[in-house]
């Protein structure tokens, strides 16, 4: 091989001129090729030949040029050797920052090109000489070259000469490429002190992220394999709880997942951590991560008074909302003070959002501020302030509402049995409007019942036992209501129980789970029931829904199941499995229960897999069942079982702390 030691000294002379020359020659070649040699003969070839540049290459000396000592320096066409021997490299052909030697160095063969990596071949260039040079083809070409000089471009194979020259130039340029200047480095990604995922969990994450983009299968028929996309949220939550960080190589897939599914964002971004945000800052597609919840990673800590102040005064709206939420969670009083400091200057829609963040950590300490907000210019702000105040039963606002409600709803002592009588308000006066009541009902509702509903909803539930002679919520709900007001009144109590998170009233309004929904004491709306259930403790919720499912089956249970804590507590899981079994025996198809099935896959305790095992068998087809249903059910149960197993495996992988941290600290 050629080495730098053989780099010849001669070309050290006039390297600057070489560079200009070679660039000019290449430009000329390109122009000639572009326009056609007929129209524009490559004059440089002739000119170069006249100046004797090619002469050296075409005749003996060129072939035996001392610097071409290595074997394998080849090139069937020798004519160009001399022509491009001076480094014919066009800047226009170079890559964005790949520079050719004639650009970075003072010449192809110049001794000053002594940087690392500039070795013989790239200097002398392959294709300069070779067997072809001595071959007959070359002598022929050499002859044409001579013809060029001699006869002035007539009767010559100009295209061949041009291509010869261009070929040598091209190989030379490629062989002599040098790196370009480095751009300024990126900022280093911030350090993430969390521990890395155990190996098993890493593989699981890759699998879940790879399965995320799977197209949802045709309706009804989902096969026996688990739906991986549905398991990703659980996995993320669990991994975050255990304090793991995402493996760097998985960050792009994780950010893509969060981009596609907003419900994944908070957990995915938390797992991605500071390096995820660093990465998102480089790719406009992931800009979402820098907004809203994503920006939480860059918020100053709530204790950093100066940083909080600065961001609150100068931050973007989303950053300020996130900041207020963070401060409020840390110290409710400080959050309120922060908001109050700039309250009058905020825009109406911003005020609404900020006010909403007070919902977290709401206490009597907020009453004064909310009371003031009742006089706000914006009606939506007033309504929200009223809603928040009504969740504070001890507030003056609640007292006013209790007074108003008591004048409308009372016990009719004249009736034979105790009955609730209702006298809806006749007007919605200024004071009522000042307390957030909306005077105009939506289309289709009477004014008076609309006002009544709002009053009862905003009144503290604690005022009713006194109003009804010390009766318990159950007893009050059981009382008959005069003049068809029952529906209106109970619905308003439901809203109040949800808003005030009152478990005893919720319990009373839900009634016994076994009572058919349509004839229950409180509400028959499943959506309202689900909301009421959410105010009960988790185990009581599970027991209530289990009893409901046992009594009424699954067809109405979907919303109720959705508010139960995951994984489902024992009585609930068993009840759902039994109900599915019953539904199968009754001859329905599994896709009638696809919603519940999907929930069960995500929410059943993994231990339930054992109970389900027997159901995956393919039953014999009986006459009275729906055709093929047995096979579909077996498939659905298989999927349920395999999903539960997968979840169990996920948990196990994320729990193997011994190995994960052991290797981390050991090495």
């Amino acid at each position: 091989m050629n080495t730098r030691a053989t780099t010849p000294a001669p070309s050290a002379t006039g390297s600057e001129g070489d560079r200009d020359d070679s660039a000019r020659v290449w430009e000329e070649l390109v122009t000639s090729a572009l326009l056609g040699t007929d129209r524009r003969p490559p004059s440089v070839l002739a000119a170069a030949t006249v100046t004797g540049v090619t002469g050296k290459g075409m005749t003996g000396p060129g072939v035996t040029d001392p610097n071409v000592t290595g074997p394998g320096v080849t090139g069937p066409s020798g004519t160009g050797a001399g022509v491009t021997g001076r480094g014919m490299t066009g800047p226009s052909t170079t890559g964005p920052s790949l520079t050719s030697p004639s650009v970075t160095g003072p010449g192809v063969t110049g001794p000053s090109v002594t940087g690392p990596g500039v070795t013989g071949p790239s200097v002398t260039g392959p294709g300069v000489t070779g067997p072809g040079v001595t071959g007959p083809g070359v002598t022929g070409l050499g002859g044409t070259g001579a013809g060029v000089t001699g006869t002035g471009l007539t009767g010559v194979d100009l295209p061949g000469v041009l291509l010869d020259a261009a070929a040598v130039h091209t190989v030379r340029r490629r062989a002599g490429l040098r790196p370009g200047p480095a751009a300024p480095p990126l900022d280093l990604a911030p350090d993430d002190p969390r521990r890395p995922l155990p190996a098993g969990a890493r593989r699981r994450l890759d699998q879940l992220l790879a399965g995320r983009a799977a197209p949802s299968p045709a309706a009804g028929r989902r096969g026996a394999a688990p739906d991986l996309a549905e398991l990703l949220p659980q996995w993320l939550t669990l991994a975050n709880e255990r304090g793991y960080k995402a493996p760097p190589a998985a960050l792009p897939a994780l950010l893509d997942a969060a981009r596609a599914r907003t419900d994944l964002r908070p957990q995915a971004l938390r797992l991605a951590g500071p390096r995820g945000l660093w990465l998102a800052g480089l790719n406009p597609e992931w800009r979402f991560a820098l907004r809203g919840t994503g920006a939480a990673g860059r918020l100053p800590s709530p204790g950093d008074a100066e940083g909080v102040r600065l961001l609150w005064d100068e931050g973007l709206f989303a950053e300020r909302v996130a900041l207020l939420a963070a401060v409020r969670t840390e110290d409710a009083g400080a959050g309120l003070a922060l908001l109050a400091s700039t309250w009058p200057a905020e825009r109406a829609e911003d005020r609404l959002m900020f006010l909403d963040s007070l919902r977290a950590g709401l206490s009597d300490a907020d009453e004064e501020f909310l009371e003031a907000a009742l006089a706000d210019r914006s009606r939506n702000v007033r309504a929200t302030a009223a809603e928040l105040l009504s969740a504070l039963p001890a507030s003056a606002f609640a007292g006013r509402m209790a007074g108003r409600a008591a004048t409308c709803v009372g016990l009719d002592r004249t009736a034979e049995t105790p009955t609730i009588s209702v006298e809806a308000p006749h007007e919605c006066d200024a004071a009522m409007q000042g307390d957030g009541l909306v005077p105009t009902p939506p289309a289709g509702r009477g004014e008076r019942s609309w006002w009544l509903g709002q009053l009862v909803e905003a009144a503290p539930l604690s005022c009713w036992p006194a109003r009804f002679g010390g009766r318990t919520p159950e007893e009050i709900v059981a009382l008959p209501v005069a003049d068809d007001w029952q529906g209106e009144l109970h619905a308003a109590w439901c809203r109040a129980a949800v808003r005030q998170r009152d478990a005893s009233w919720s319990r009373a309004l839900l009634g016994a789970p076994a009572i058919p929904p349509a004839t229950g004491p409180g509400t028959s709306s499943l959506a309202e029931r689900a909301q009421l259930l959410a105010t009960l403790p988790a185990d009581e919720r599970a027991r209530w829904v289990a009893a409901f499912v046992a009594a009424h089956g699954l067809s109405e249970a979907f919303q109720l199941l959705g508010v139960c804590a995951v994984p489902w507590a024992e009585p609930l899981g068993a009840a759902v499995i039994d109900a599915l079994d019953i539904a199968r025996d009754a001859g329905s198809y599994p896709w009638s229960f696809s919603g519940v099935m999907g929930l069960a896959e995500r929410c059943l305790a993994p231990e339930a897999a054992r109970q389900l095992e027997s159901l995956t068998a393919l039953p014999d087809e009986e006459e009275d069942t729906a055709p093929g249903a047995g096979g579909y059910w077996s498939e659905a149960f298989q999927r349920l079982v395999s999903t539960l197993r997968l979840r169990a495996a996920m948990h196990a992988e994320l729990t193997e702390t011994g190995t994960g941290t052991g290797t981390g600290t050991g090495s």
Partner: protein
Amino acid sequence: MNAMGVRWTADQVLALAPDEASRRAGSRLGTAGVWSGTGCGDGAVWGVCAGSGGRSYETVVDLTGPAYTCACPSRKFPCKHALGLLLLHASDGTAVAEGTPPEWAGPWLAKRRERAEAPSRPAGTGASGATADPEAARRRAERRAARITAGAQELEQRLADLMRGGLATAEQAGYGLWEETAARMVDAQAPGLAGRVRELGAIPGSGPGWPVRLLEECALTHLLDRAWLAADRLPADFAATVRTRVGLTAPADGAPVRDHWLVLAQYDTADARLTTRRVWMYGTSTGRTALLLSFGAAGRAPGLALPVGALLDGELTPHSGAGRLRAEPGEHFVPVDAPVSPPPGGPVGEALGAYGRALSDDPWLDSWPVTLRQVVPTRAEYGWQLADADGREALPLTPAAQNRPGLWRLVALSGGAPLTVFGECGHRGFTPLAAWSPEAPAETVPLI
């Protein structure tokens, strides 16, 4: 060295998938619920997958090949069942128990083992081709060479016409002219020339500076024509390179190299006719880099699939000529349970130097496999580049690599800090294919 028991990782298994759809389908099947009768042992895994509609498929994977067989009618290779089975085997230590192959798996495995036991390259088999009729074979070769020569001359004529008329006309002529010339080269049995011509046809109007690129490629095609026409006067090695470039397959007749091979990268490129799979391997003790090529008809996955990042013990037989990188895999690859470390490498300047040196053996090379050490991905105005950690010199990424998802894996893995990257370095820039971070140097992160 009991390599039979080595489990593959899910990453490695997923890297075997012929396409994204199989990867997803395989992921869904990688759970215990759908499998029965699973077992593993003697370097193989088997199981019965409950397919949709009550059908079930027997799947067997020989990990030493790797080779797959499945009762399903899928034409993908490996099929989703084989992938699912491997994922199950990879993810869950308890799901697949040790055992002896059942009767539906035994014969196939036994046959594969038998073939592996047989001498890998008996001297006698070489004669099978030669015995046919050496005289006829020689005549066939001569006829083909004559056709290619005619083709090369015709191509020379077309290039000369193009130069006379000017490249500016090439843009107006459109793609049809090139297609026709390419078809003529196919008729001349010179697929290498045909491929070059097709690429020439794609250059006109392909963005700023296309006339320069077209002139460069025309000139190199001209160089190849001339080299072919003078092939008998070239040194043997270079002549072999020229023949391979023109499209005559060089025989894999080098001495087989046995080593622990690290699978660096595997990726497919497809055109209307053919899917080409490239697998880069690095021999950890020989220091040799090898390229395995495998082909599939359009839309079908090529047969060869190796898990990226795995260390495999086996033989590769190099081809002669062209760059001397291409090799044929031996019959048998056994996973090795040994720590993996990236190939040695250097700064970006050295990578370009290596490409330049390689050009002296094969001036038609578009790129050369290199490993960059201590490089950092950074962003210049024109796009991403890999810069030396000292911040002086940098290699731009190729335009294609700028838009791949793998770029972001590279950036994420780096976090702004230096790392080791393997890829192809050429005149268009650098294509990153695999990377290793200093924190986990044993883990090969595929970038494509």
